[in-house]
């Protein structure tokens, strides 16, 4: 207590300090409220309005600089419900051709959460130019309404719908999480539009304008000092060859399946086709868009489904190439190795079955696609003596396969790709019980059947690796963004696979060349070009086999690899090989000489045939 006597005067210091701060605040208030008219608005009832200026979304060009995607202006009518007092509702309804009930319904919706009577929300989306013109004349009578300029996507040619993806309104969750987006904003939802959203979208601008009680704009707030200009999205230069893409889509008409073409020396995707496809122009615009989307969504052929990235198919015999490479790498077989074939794999009583052909060595086994040969090869790999347990041998095979891409996400710049499947030891233990299975139980993996699944993009990547003799670049579809021509470094790095013996590749490629010269793709030779390919017929439990074909050309310095899969089309050489062969001719020579064949393939409609009711392979 004694100290309090001396401390008594501290109350004055504390009290004085409190008063001092309060006085400083009052002076400050005096300054900003009375002296400085910077903060004063011209008239008492003026209000500021935030107008969002939407940037122009970036254009997309193909590899030769041709325009794939551009924009067209469109106009949205927006409303702030609490400011609509005195609005000429009748003539507004007339201009928009809606009823009074519809008007009231929309105003009510604009008032309810998440909208608010005080916030602007869209009243009529993407008006036609005619409506916009009529509206603009009378806009001064429509209090609380104003027009926002937006743009919509436009596609000069109706192609590459899956690759490009589409743009739509941002989801509620995304708008809440990401502060750039507000409800009603557009965002890339699939394909390149999603993968390159940040580059394409640009940056929104904001204009603060002063309006009077009659909803008339008086001018920019403080001369536009706080405005920001919208920054246009950057153009994308993609790796697609528009002509090849269009040609491929024409060939795939009436067929379910996918085609992926890659330039092996760079990993650039030249064409990515999922069929059936749709005109991307269907998914732009307001009312039409919703209608078209529903129609496409409910179509039994699943046109919105991107088969090239998401449909997992057994690769069929095309997978034998990988077996041949691994077995050579392990020193188990050589060019001259041959195995018996009795229209099937003898040790298992002729299963898997095979078609009649003469005795084959390694090269011949590729050309003739001998099932028995690769049943032996597969078991040679998994049952190697150096592995104490069969599981180790199987895991060795699985690890080697995975270096080629199957069972992994390749990491391309297109979103939503599926990894495919290379079954694990644990999986089989679950199915057959531990030790309940051996290499002969799962021998059909060796010929690309059973649980082995790849997406078409992975198939193309496998063939690109073979064309490159041991490495691949991650497939990608963009070579440059805006003025910077560079791309992500991960797309310029070589990815080496588990097999690096040059000789192994030479033997396999010889077989693939023979496939065109004297093998399963004999009738599909590309005139004047040495091409190498492999057929595949992927059995599936739901119906007729899928036809697979993959090839590259020319043999020296390959310029293009193509993988093609057509669902329920039967033997690979009959339907898929011609598509690949024609596309190669088109890309490498610029024209197609086999007009009759081209016409025949385009005219075939496998969907409307008896296979209509069959579904996906998985």
């Amino acid at each position, binding site marked *: 207590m004694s*100290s309090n006597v001396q401390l008594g005067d501290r109350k004055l210091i*504390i009290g004085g300090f409190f008063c001092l701060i309060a006085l400083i*605040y*009052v002076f400050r*208030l005096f300054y*900003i409220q009375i002296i400085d008219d910077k903060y004063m608005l011209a008239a*008492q009832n003026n209000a500021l*309005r935030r107008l969002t200026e939407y940037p122009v979304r970036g254009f997309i060009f193909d590899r030769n600089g041709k325009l794939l995607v551009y924009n067209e202006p469109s106009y949205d009518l927006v409303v702030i419900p609490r400011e609509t007092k005195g609005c000429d509702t009748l003539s507004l309804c007339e201009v928009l051709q809606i009823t009074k009930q519809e008007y009231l319904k929309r105003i009510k919706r604009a008032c309810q959460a998440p909208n608010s009577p005080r*916030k602007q929300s869209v009243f009529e989306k993407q008006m036609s130019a005619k409506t916009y013109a009529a509206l603009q004349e009378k806009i001064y009578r429509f209090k609380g309404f104003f027009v926002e300029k937006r743009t919509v996507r436009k596609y000069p040619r109706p192609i590459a719908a899956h690759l490009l993806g589409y743009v739509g309104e941002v989801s509620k969750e995304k708008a809440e999480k990401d502060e750039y987006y507000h409800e009603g904003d557009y965002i890339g939802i699939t394909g390149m539009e999603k993968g390159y959203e940040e580059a394409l979208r640009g940056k929104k601008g904001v204009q603060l304008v002063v309006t009077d009680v009659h909803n008339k704009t008086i001018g920019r707030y403080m001369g536009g000092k706080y405005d920001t200009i919208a920054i246009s999205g950057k153009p994308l230069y993609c790796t697609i060859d528009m002509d090849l893409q269009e040609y491929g889509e024409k060939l795939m008409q009436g067929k379910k399946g996918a085609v992926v073409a890659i330039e092996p020396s760079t990993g650039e995707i030249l064409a990515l086709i999922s069929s059936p496809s749709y005109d991307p122009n269907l998914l732009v615009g307001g009312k039409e868009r919703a209608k078209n989307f529903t129609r496409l969504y409910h179509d039994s052929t699943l046109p919105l489904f991107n088969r090239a990235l998401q449909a997992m198919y057994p690769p069929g015999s095309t997978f034998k190439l990988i077996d041949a490479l691994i077995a050579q790498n392990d020193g188990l077989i050589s060019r001259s190795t041959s195995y018996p074939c009795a229209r099937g794999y003898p040790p298992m009583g002729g299963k898997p079955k095979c078609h009649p052909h003469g005795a084959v060595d390694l090269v011949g086994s590729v050309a003739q696609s001998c099932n028995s040969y690769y049943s032996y090869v597969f078991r040679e790999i998994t049952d190697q003596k150096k592995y104490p347990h069969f599981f180790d041998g199987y895991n060795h095979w699985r690890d080697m396969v995975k270096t080629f891409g199957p069972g992994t996400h390749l990491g391309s710049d297109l979103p939503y790709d599926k990894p495919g499947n290379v079954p694990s030891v644990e999986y089989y233990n679950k199915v057959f019980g531990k030790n309940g299975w051996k290499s002969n139980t799962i021998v059909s993996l060796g010929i690309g059947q059973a649980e082995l699944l790849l997406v078409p993009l992975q198939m193309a990547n496998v063939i690109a690796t073979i064309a490159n003799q041991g490495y691949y670049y991650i497939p990608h579809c963009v070579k440059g963004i805006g003025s910077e021509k560079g791309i992500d470094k991960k797309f310029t790095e070589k990815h080496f696979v588990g097999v690096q013996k040059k000789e192994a590749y030479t033997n396999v490629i010889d077989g693939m060349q023979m496939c065109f010269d004297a093998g399963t793709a004999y009738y599909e030779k590309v005139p004047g070009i040495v091409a190498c390919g492999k057929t595949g017929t992927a059995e599936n439990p739901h119906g007729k086999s899928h036809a697979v074909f993959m090839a590259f050309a020319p043999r020296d310095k390959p310029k293009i690899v193509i993988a093609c899969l057509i669902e329920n089309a039967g033997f690979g050489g009959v339907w898929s090989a011609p598509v690949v062969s024609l596309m190669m001719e088109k890309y490498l020579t610029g024209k197609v000489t086999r007009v009759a064949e081209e016409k025949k393939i385009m005219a075939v409609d496998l969907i409307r045939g008896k296979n209509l009711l069959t579904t996906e392979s998985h």
Partner: protein
Amino acid sequence: MRNNQNSVFYGVDRVTVLVYVLLVIMGWLNIYAAVYNEEHQNIFDTTQRYGKQLLWIGGAAVIAFSILVIDANFYTAFAYGFYGFLILANILVVFFGREIKGSKSWFGVGGFGVQPAEFMKFATNLALAKFLSNQNIIVNQQFRLKIRDLLKNYKNTLIALFFILLPLVLIKVLQDETGLAIVFVALIIVLYREGLSVNFLIFGLLAAILFVVALVASQISSVLITLAVIALSSFLFIRRSRKNLLTVALVYGLAAGVVMGTNYVYNHLEPHQKVRIDVLLGRGTVNLKKEGYNVNQAKIAIGSGGFLGKGYLQGTQTKYEFVPEQDTDFIFCTVGEEWGFVGSTIVIFLELFIILRLIFLAERQRSDFSRIYGYGVSAILFFHLAINVGMTIGLMPVIGIPLPFFSYGGSSLWSFTILLFIFIKLDANRLLILR
């Protein structure tokens, strides 16, 4: 009734209660104006914020009355109990709380939420008052510099500081509620009143000044200013006593530490906190369209009010959602816009009046406990006023802190009511008991 010693209201300081009621009502009317909505014009509509605030006000009245009914000894007896209980509650809320706006600092009770950190204020104040009012304790007056002495003589200061810093650190680290945590700093003023060496405050102030200088000025000029501070303090302290040489050395160390540490601290702030400091100091290229937008809009709202304001419910800036949190932390903008300079000044003076009145009342207490508690209430209210109003007029960084008795929110209104009425009860009993 007033003269009846048995009345609940006996000895209650009517002036304070009157100003309190005035502020609460003004706050309610301004909340109505801030969220005014033509669809819901009824001020009693409990689906709207202003209707809910009325419920909170009713609750506050019940709380105030209950506090006056309870025996004053209860608050001294259970001072540590409250403190311990609320520390526990503030820890448990992290595990059992409801997540609102990304931080777990609310207990959910049906449709309503309670924020225990709000109630930590009165509990900390009670505990501090209890500790300091212990007769054996005198907060150190001398600034001795031998480490041995420091630990011995400053033990009590350190314990007092611990009472203050424990909730601060808990609330900041566990709940990430900067606004609710930083408030406890205000209690340093209480320590000063109770004898804390003024050197502490000078050092604190110096550190703050140097921090700002190091952020704003260039490298060379901040070195120069630091040297000037050192020279000045050397002159002041050495002249007073040669023994202060150590003090001077300490100042040197402090100055060097602050200036060198500034960039480290600044770089380790969260991005939004950095931005707020940048906005306040006008540092670098503050983008008024982005980071500075809120503060600028707040200033526009207040500035557009002029001398007499636009009139009740006539504000445009605070209604069109230009101003964020217009009914809670930025409620002062509505006052500034609709009531102008006159209205804002009245609000500031009414708040200041309660704060000064509390000092006056505290000084007339016979018991140390009551005096210390009263100073605590005064300091806490002042801190809220200074930060809350300061941020809307661009003199303080943006920290989420309510304006006492005024802002929307049940937890904050009830917390301030408890804080204030415990003191009113203590004051009412000042003649009866010597605590």
